[in-house]
């Protein structure tokens, strides 16, 4: 059953595997999946693991179950209108709909979405609603007599069908699921039969409900619509050079440099105090001590055009770090490479000798941020020595480079620097690897 689902969802960068299927099977077994809308809800709970999965998930779902491909930059409406599934559905829908009503395109799409995202909860609500409605409306008879209450026979049948349909057995359901898959394979047959007369949705005909019988499903459709156009529901590009959009992802990666440790220690003063109070009966009192250590030196190359686009974001990154963890964070600036001084301010007017820098605690972690691209003569022996002495003193030193990785091998100075210390791209992924690299060496 649905064995191609994991592979198809993985194409969208989602994590789905055989466990997803097993869990899905369990959910179906428990009777939580009766409609396509249920499938959307249920799979979302299983597959989506963070808000950034919602966009890809919605796309994958529309592609897999409805054969609707949502391209980048598409709105959900565009994609639906373009699809064959919608065309088929529309023909069928209009065939059976009230001939007197003229549906606008918007209404059609809304109805389509309503049907796609109809859940069995909605059906229950409709059925319950109908019962309550009937019971609570004493004027019902009069209205019917006057012909105002136009609950047609067809609608009554529809409700009946809904009730039936909520008793659908697992086997039937699986069979139907299989069927759509087959239909998708042979394209000429077009869309899915989840929707439509023979399909799984009881609302195949008749259009919107009347007389206060609310058709639900707006929830799911609305959500899907919202998700498709909103950047927040897509993963940030973790391989893009750090920018305002992915600075939070970078922050998350860099947080790994915080050293955390917790230990249970004997609280001697309290033990003695309480022991004396008890008249010499000394009982051990424990106290758990936690230490969070963040000692970072950041050296930023802010000279020259090549670096200027990144300096602001990098500063923002470390500023965020500092506000969240009030610990030792030292920022220095340099131009192209480090000779015997670095600077305390961005305008490079307050020099700070490298000799003094080397007096810092050796547990500081050092980030160089720069493109390391310069004229070969600039990276002279003095500079190389400075860099080497820093690496020697601070075991955990890395260089983050905003230059795209593919150009690194063409720049001589990058290669030289790479021989002195590990270099990583200035991307969320790169930062993550840099931090991992630092943690790996953390045998002190």
């Amino acid at each position, binding site marked *: 059953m649905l064995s191609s689902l994991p592979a198809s969802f993985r194409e969208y960068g989602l*994590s789905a595997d055989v*466990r997803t299927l097993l*869990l899905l099977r*369990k*959910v179906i077994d*428990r009777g*939580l999946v009766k409609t396509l809308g249920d499938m959307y*809800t*249920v799979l*979302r*709970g*299983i597959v*989506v*693991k*963070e*808000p950034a999965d*919602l966009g890809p998930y919605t796309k994958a779902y529309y592609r897999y179950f409805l054969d609707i491909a949502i391209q980048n930059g598409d709105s959900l409406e565009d994609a639906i209108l373009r699809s064959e599934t919608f065309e088929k559905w529309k023909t069928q829908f209009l065939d059976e709909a009230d001939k007197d009503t003229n549906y606008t395109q918007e209404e059609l799409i809304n109805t389509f979405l309503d049907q796609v995202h109809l*859940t069995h*909860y909605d059906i*229950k609500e409709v059925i319950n609603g109908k019962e309550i409605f009937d019971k609570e409306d004493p004027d019902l008879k009069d209205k019917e007599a006057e012909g105002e209450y136009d609950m047609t026979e067809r609608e009554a049948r529809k409700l009946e069908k809904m009730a039936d349909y909520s008793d659908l057995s697992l086997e039937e359901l699986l069979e139907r699921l299989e069927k759509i898959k087959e239909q998708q394979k042979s394209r000429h047959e077009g869309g899915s039969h989840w929707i439509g007369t023979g399909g799984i949705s009881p609302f195949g005909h008749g259009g919107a409900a009347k007389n206060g019988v609310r058709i*639900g499903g707006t*929830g*799911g459709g609305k*959500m899907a619509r*919202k998700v498709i156009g909103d950047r927040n529901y897509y993963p940030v590009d973790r391989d893009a050079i750090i920018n305002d959009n992915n600075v939070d992802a970078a922050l*998350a990666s860099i*947080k790994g440099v915080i050293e*955390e440790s*917790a230990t249970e220690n004997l609280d001697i003063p309290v033990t003695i105090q309480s022991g004396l109070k008890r008249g010499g*009966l000394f*009982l*051990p*009192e*424990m106290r*758990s001590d*936690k230490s*969070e250590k963040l000692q970072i030196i950041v050296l930023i190359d802010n000279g020259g055009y090549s670096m200027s686009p990144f300096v602001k974001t990098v500063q923002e990154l470390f500023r965020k770090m500092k506000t969240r963890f009030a610990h030792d964070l030292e920022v220095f600036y340099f131009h192209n490479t480090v000779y015997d001084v670095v600077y305390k301010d961005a305008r490079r007017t307050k020099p700070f000798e490298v000799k003094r820098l080397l007096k810092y605690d050796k547990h500081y972690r050092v980030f160089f941020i720069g493109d390391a691209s310069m004229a070969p003569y600039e990276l002279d022996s003095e500079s190389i020595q400075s860099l080497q002495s820093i690496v020697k003193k601070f075991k955990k030193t890395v260089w983050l480079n905003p230059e795209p990785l593919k150009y690194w091998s063409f720049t001589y100075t990058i290669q030289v620097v790479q021989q002195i210390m590990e270099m990583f791209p200035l991307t969320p992924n790169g930062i993550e690897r840099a931090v991992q690299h630092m943690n790996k060496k953390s045998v002190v």
Partner: protein
Amino acid sequence: MAETTYWTGSEKYLCDTSLAQAFHMARVLGMPLLIEGEPGTGKTELPIHYSNSLGLDLHVYPVGSKSTVDQFVAKFDHVKYLRDSQIEILNAQREEKGLDSRLSTGGRNPEVLADYVAKGPAALAYSSPNSVLLIDEIDKAPREFPNDLLYALSHRKFIMPESGEVVEISEEDMPAIVITSNREQELPTAFKGRCIYHYIDFPDKDILSKIIEKHHPDIADEVVNVAMDVFYHLRKLGLERAPTTREILNWLKYIKQSASKEAIEKIERLEGLGALIKTQPDMDKVQRLLRVDPNNFSGPSLN
């Protein structure tokens, strides 16, 4: 039988349909529900109101930076154990000396190890069928906590330390487990894999007005509408800490002390802005932006 009815909220709590469905699914499957979302969107409120409205036991474990699985499941109280066993010795000595007053161990018997096991919320929830277990703000935990928890949650059974007592629960009686997170820390993938995930979306106007009605049924609609306009506008300014549901509810609590007409004026003057804006840079930004463009609120500007 497990409590698997479909729950859609109570008088005080509006449970969004998709959240209600995710919660239902989690309970039917006996899996924990992991809720994420902006602070102040009612993540913690869900299990509280759920247990209240159905009269179920609620066990809460607020996660902090020092949380350990011991605290969550059960802890053996070594100190009490040591004390009581020393008291036994003392009592024996006193008896020898012919003193009849005995020191009490408070009904605990050092021979019975189970007397010294302090059960945490997890063990308590697992020993009462159909309870509700809330693990609040798991992202505040030390990094290894979620993984330790994972082991605990994936077996429907805990073994008590030292005493070896087994606390076990059948799948039918599984407590409804709700875990909340503010996403301050990424949770391990394996951990998320064991949970049903739900991201609480920020409510739109329709839903927000319903939420407001549940909390402040006495406020006139016009007032709520004006307040919501201001509120959504503030959210759009791109503040560091955008105001959320909790903030507007608090703000309205302040606003509603005045009569409708006065209240609208108050809103337009942005009185009590401190309830909405929580950081100084944000406050500066709001004041700056509103001065530049006083027509933003179709009313008199600030000051």
